[in-house]
């Protein structure tokens, strides 16, 4: 049973200059156009085709790694899958609960305490107060922040902040998990817990989609790869083959040998 079907997804992104964003400039441009002369008012909107006819299907157990240079369309595609960007062409079919994991520090407020931020983040993620309460203990335990959770997070060190963010962000389970450049967290101690938790999420998810530049991460977590170039699908298939064809595999082998 396909959990995620993307069919001919096309995304045209409007590039709005300052002039194009100005109602006044637009109104003046229209007024001038009556004369018949073509004048470049700078209010034209340029359109960039960020994704061009991207199609693929993912079934239960598929772990897709998105590969490509900066600007290839990985972030755009993953946001289309999350329902954040509506494709200008094509269709998307999603079955099951979808968890986007994009910004680890989303919705955090510096003045509020760790516990208050747990509630806040839970609300932003769409959890009910009951669900948040049920998870609060688990999150507190995982972060190992103890009494610090009663202090405003602006008193936290960067490492503590990451611990809290990671604990909250990973407390939900879903059928489809999307990760965009998920970062490495915390000190060596916490990093192992974080790796373990990431593996859990990956293991529990029906479908996983990861956008990453790190071939190592992709090889470890994914079984299929999608190589995007300039918004088009350049390659699709088993992750090893796609990485090899993309010239990425040598990098991993080279690094692990030296």
């Amino acid at each position: 049973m396909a959990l995620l079907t993307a069919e001919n997804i096309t995304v045209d992104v409007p590039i709005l200059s300052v002039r194009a964003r100005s109602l006044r400039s637009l109104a003046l441009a229209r007024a001038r156009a009556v004369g018949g002369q073509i004048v470049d008012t700078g209010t034209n909107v340029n359109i960039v085709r960020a994704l061009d006819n991207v199609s693929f299907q993912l079934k239960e157990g598929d772990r897709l790694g998105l590969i490509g240079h900066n600007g290839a369309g990985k972030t755009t595609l993953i946001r289309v899958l999350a329902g954040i960007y509506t494709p200008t062409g094509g269709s998307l079919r999603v079955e099951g609960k979808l968890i986007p994991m994009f910004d680890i520090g989303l919705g955090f407020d510096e003045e509020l305490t760790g516990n208050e931020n747990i509630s806040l983040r839970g609300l932003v993620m769409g959890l009910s107060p009951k669900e948040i309460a049920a998870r609060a203990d688990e999150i507190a335990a995982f972060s190992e922040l103890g009494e610090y959770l009663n202090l405003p997070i602006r008193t936290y060190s960067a490492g503590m902040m990451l611990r809290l963010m990671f604990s909250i962000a990973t407390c939900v389970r879903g059928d489809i998990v999307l990760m965009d450049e998920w970062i490495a967290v915390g000190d060596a101690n916490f990093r192992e817990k974080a790796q373990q938790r990431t593996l859990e999420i990956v293991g529990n998810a029906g479908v996983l989609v990861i956008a990453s530049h790190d071939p190592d991460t992709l090889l470890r977590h994914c079984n299929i790869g999608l190589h995007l170039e300039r918004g088009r699908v350049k390659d699709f298939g088993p992750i090893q083959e796609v990485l090899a064809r993309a010239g990425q595999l040598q990098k991993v082998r080279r690094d692990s040998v030296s």
Partner: protein
Amino acid sequence: MNGSMTESTRAKQDLRQILTHNHVWRALAAADIRSKYRMSTLGSFWITLATGTLALSIGLIYGQFFGQDIHSYLPYFTVSYITWMFIATVLNDCSNSLVAAGNLIKSSQMPIVFHVLRSVQRNFIVFAHNAVVVVLVWMFIRWPIGFDALLVIPAMILLFVFLTSTAITISVICVRYRDIPPLIQVITQFLFFVTPIIWYPEQLRFGSVILALNPIAYMLMIIRDPVLGRPVTLETWLGAILLTVVSTAVAMFMYRRFRSRIAYWV
């Protein structure tokens, strides 16, 4: 998200969730207020203090210029002023609500309309704090309050719906056209003078048409007059209801039509 969902269904679902998931935008607004006043002595009751001071100063002084009895002018101005502040700050804040929430819009699946409601609710919480000043003024002046005053409750509901709808429309336009906020400021400044806040509508001899054409006047009067024991005409109620219905229809149209574009514009 299940199956394939069209954009119109998505927008409708968002709008429905305003009611079904109201705890989300209400809790976020409450957190915003808590955060803002966390480091202060009185906390959010600074709001009440600030408004109280202003209401008292202007109420006691301006009343003298209008030859009005302080006992009637002070409550009149206080109620008019706090209602006006609610309306004006919602109108000014909403021009930035969606733009400021850009990161949340692009990184989470929260219904986009919730960002607007968070802003309106935040201002409502401030309004509730300011309402305490009215209670304090009543304790000194004790103007008669009858059962008619209960009409303020449906009036508040109408006002909230009207402001939310207007805010949704304005914030959607402002995501696309970024030079609108100063225009809103100018409009609200103008509205302050043509709305009966510091003057009584009865005092107007010429130009009563501005009262009839000023939407804010209708919304202000249905809130203020029941509280002060002033009569509200049927025309005023009908006008307020009509304004609310029209603004809601426009907001729903704007949201359904442009929701899918907001993530690209922001």
